[in-house]
């Protein structure tokens, strides 16, 4: 069964550094998403991406964040100048169509020290 993959599984970075989290969505999916889950809290929507542009974003997704689909397979989330409060699990997801099942990746645990 096709699956969403994410790398790395765990990323440790120092405050103020830039990180790039990588995702490979399911190949025939058209919609891509990033979510974050601070430990012990609910999953929060960050951004959705369709047709090479952002279709929706939440209030969390400010200028510190950016997304890109640099080639036909990868979907990346860049966090500039990381802060301690950016420490969380970041999940990538993809879907064939809006409203259909979103397939989630295993997540990247980001720790900012």
């Amino acid at each position, binding site marked *: 069964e096709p699956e969403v993959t994410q790398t790395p599984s765990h990323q440790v970075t120092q405050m103020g550094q830039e990180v790039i989290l990588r995702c490979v969505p399911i190949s025939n999916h058209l919609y891509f*998403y990033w979510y974050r889950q601070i430990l012990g809290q*609910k*999953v929060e929507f960050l951004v959705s991406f369709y047709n090479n542009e952002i279709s929706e974003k939440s209030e969390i997704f400010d200028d510190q964040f950016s997304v890109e689909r640099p080639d036909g397979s990868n979907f990346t989330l860049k966090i500039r100048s990381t802060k301690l409060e950016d420490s969380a699990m970041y999940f990538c997801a993809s879907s064939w169509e809006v*409203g259909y099942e979103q*397939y989630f990746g295993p997540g990247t645990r980001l720790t900012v020290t």
Partner: protein
Amino acid sequence: AQTVTQSQPEMSVQEAETVTLSCTYDTSENNYYLFWYKQPPSRQMILVIRQEAYKQQNATENRFSVNFQKAAKSFSLKISDSQLGDTAMYFCASMSYQFYFGTGTSLTVIP
């Protein structure tokens, strides 16, 4: 903005018994979708069941079924014949343009 409320932070059920997890939501959209996702200790989110708001018939997926009350904006999940592998966090979610998740219910199945 939409909100999703799960009022039961923790629940437990005996193996083979039935348990119902509650969820209420608030939306001004006419067209939306509702989901239950399961997050086991491995932390990967797995879809349990999906409901389209325009469909009156409650969705069913094997041992999992929902009670969708559109007027009351309620979307509860019933797990029948609970199994040890059902132990996980369960998140209710609604979607029109964005996904909104509830705070989750931690379900423990007791052998």
